[in-house]
């Protein structure tokens, strides 16, 4: 049951998929799980629709975790988010408002093949697991494969590199499936949130250029409030700002693509830490990391519901 699942450990892909099916069966009022396609290796790409099924048309927020396989804290957060939402729906007015007014589409593991591989073969695998007949190296960076300044600055055209952009945009079935879903629902998706590690940052577009986004003031204010809220929990500092200036210039990523395709509030979180553990964030830090991130996400969502046009 929900209360018996341990959210303070990392879970294998099989565990996460069983967890999704379990919630689909036991939480029919709030949860619907469905597949949007299959990965390169044929695994289903599950997403969860979370929210009170009050009416067919509701605005929505997209959340994905685990684009990069080795960033295990991402999928852990996605699961934590679902648990908190379900557990506090009846007692927390803010959560109730969010789930009544919005659907959250949550993809706990975006890069399913890579995540599985990081459990079974190489803990530090980052890319997808697709093959190119001409090269021995496998995989594409699923965060450089989107059709927005594809394969420009900050992406590599070499298949053996960790930032390989792929042979063409949306070459990866995982990227194509998500892009198709977002294109189909873009009119009602208000926000796109993507979870990565590690750097302790909250980023927004653009990544591929230094220019300022048209709705900068609203997005910047939401980000500022979110990192302030996050810091209030355990004192952890996050930097925030446009990705190109705060992290580095990168092209072909999902956040820029979402923004360019009409989703007005697009953010990427770089979760804990800043290098002490790096990708090996101990399980004892899952709870504090997710607790503070939860507050930031609620803050952004409430801000968009209340204030942003």
């Amino acid at each position, binding site marked *: 049951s929900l209360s018996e699942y341990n959210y303070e450990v990392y*879970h294998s892909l099989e565990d996460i998929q069983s967890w999704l099916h379990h919630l689909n069966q036991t939480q029919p009022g709030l949860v619907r799980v469905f597949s949007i396609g299959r990965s390169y290796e044929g695994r289903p790409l599950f997403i969860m629709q979370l929210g009170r099924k009050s009416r067919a048309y509701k605005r929505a927020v997209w959340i994905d975790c685990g684009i990069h396989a080795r960033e295990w804290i991402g999928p852990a957060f996605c699961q934590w988010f679902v648990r908190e939402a379900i557990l506090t729906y009846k007692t927390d007015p803010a959560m109730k408002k969010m789930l009544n007014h919005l659907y959250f589409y949550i993809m706990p593991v975006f890069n399913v093949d890579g995540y599985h591989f990081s459990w079974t073969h190489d*803990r*530090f695998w980052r890319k997808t697991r697709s093959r190119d007949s001409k090269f021995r190296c496998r995989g594409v960076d699923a965060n450089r494969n989107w059709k927005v300044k594809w394969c420009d600055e*900050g992406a590599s055209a070499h298949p053996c590199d960790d930032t390989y952009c792929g042979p063409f945009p949306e070459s990866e079935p995982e990227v194509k499936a998500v892009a198709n879903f977002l294109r189909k629902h873009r009119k009602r998706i208000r926000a796109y949130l993507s979870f990565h590690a590690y750097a302790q940052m909250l980023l927004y577009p653009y990544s591929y250029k230094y220019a300022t986004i048209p709705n900068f003031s609203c997005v910047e204010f939401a980000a500022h409030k979110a990192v302030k809220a996050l810091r209030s929990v355990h004192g952890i500092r996050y930097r925030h700002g446009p990705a190109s200036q705060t992290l580095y210039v990168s092209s072909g990523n999902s956040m820029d693509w979402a923004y360019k395709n009409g989703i007005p509030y697009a953010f990427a979180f770089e979760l804990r830490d800043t*290098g002490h553990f*790096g990708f090996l964030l101990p399980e004892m830090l899952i709870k504090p990391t997710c607790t503070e991130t939860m507050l930031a996400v609620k803050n952004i969502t409430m801000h968009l519901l209340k204030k942003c046009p």
Partner: protein
Amino acid sequence: HSYDNRYAGDKVIRLIPKSEEEALALKNIYHQLKVDLWQPSSISYVSEGTITDVHISQNASRTLLAFLQETHIYYKVLIEDLQKAVENENSLQTQRNRR
């Protein structure tokens, strides 16, 4: 051992090049040693003042550390033995049931 002990003796080293010359030297040796960059995500981002965390195999780390000492480039070892760190990632919970 998990992952067939493949990370035994591997290290994660942090470097912050103080000049473009140091950055260029690091880029070259990263390329040569085929390091796994944890931060930033690509060698092309390595530049003056950029925090650079590299995962390097036990054998290659000897070459890298000798190079760093020779060129007086400041470094800090973040993870001394990556295999131990991998085992520790979930050591506190392994006795518990995952469900």
